[in-house]
């Protein structure tokens, strides 16, 4: 038994076809926009990396500047050093040192390597600056 094929009439097929083609064009344009956006983002990323380098240089320059100025808290530090009770450094013989190192190598657990991230470094730098500021205030 042959299956009956049915058809639907499309009113104004030319307009439909035209619309479809035009919309296809727009979709291709959208794809072009995607590539343009990717290239823009790449350029932006390059610039952001440049900016990062520039900021790093600025940080270095500021630390240089900081080092060029005399240390304000020097007197305080000297005072504190003088106030501290002297602690005798244990000066053991080389033999005992060797022993100690041997025992430490046998008993010490293997240290896990902690890799400091860029963010950690920046936090540490910030903390140092905060400490200096607090010392001056």
């Amino acid at each position, binding site marked *: 038994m042959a299956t009956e094929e049915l058809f639907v009439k499309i009113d104004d097929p030319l*307009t439909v076809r035209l*619309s479809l083609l*035009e919309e296809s064009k727009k979709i291709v344009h959208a794809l072009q*926009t995607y590539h343009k*956006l990717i290239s823009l983002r790449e350029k*932006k990323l390059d610039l952001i990396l440049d*900016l990062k380098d520039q900021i790093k240089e*600025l940080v270095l320059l500021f630390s240089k500047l900081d080092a060029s100025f005399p240390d304000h808290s020097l007197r305080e530090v000297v005072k504190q050093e003088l106030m501290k009770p002297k602690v005798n450094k244990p000066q053991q013989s080389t033999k005992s040192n060797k022993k100690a190192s041997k025992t430490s190598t046998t008993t010490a657990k293997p240290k896990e390597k902690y890799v400091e991230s860029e963010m950690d470094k920046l936090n540490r730098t910030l903390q140092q600056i905060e400490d200096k500021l607090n010392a001056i205030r």
Partner: protein
Amino acid sequence: MANQAPVFVKISDYKQILDIIDVVKAKIEESRRTIAKINELKNEEDQEIRAWTQNLDEVNKRITGIDKTLFEPDN
């Protein structure tokens, strides 16, 4: 409070400080220019995304029209 005693800087250090400050100023200017470029690119990106959205809205509208024509014939 910080000690208000005067602080003196060696003349050689002073010159060095002035030089560093000049370099810092130049570097800040360079960074400002870079940020301006980044901002320009960001605006361009935003504009492209807006155009993209508009484009897709138009496509959606037209496809809805075609859908209507195809599935809701007049006769």
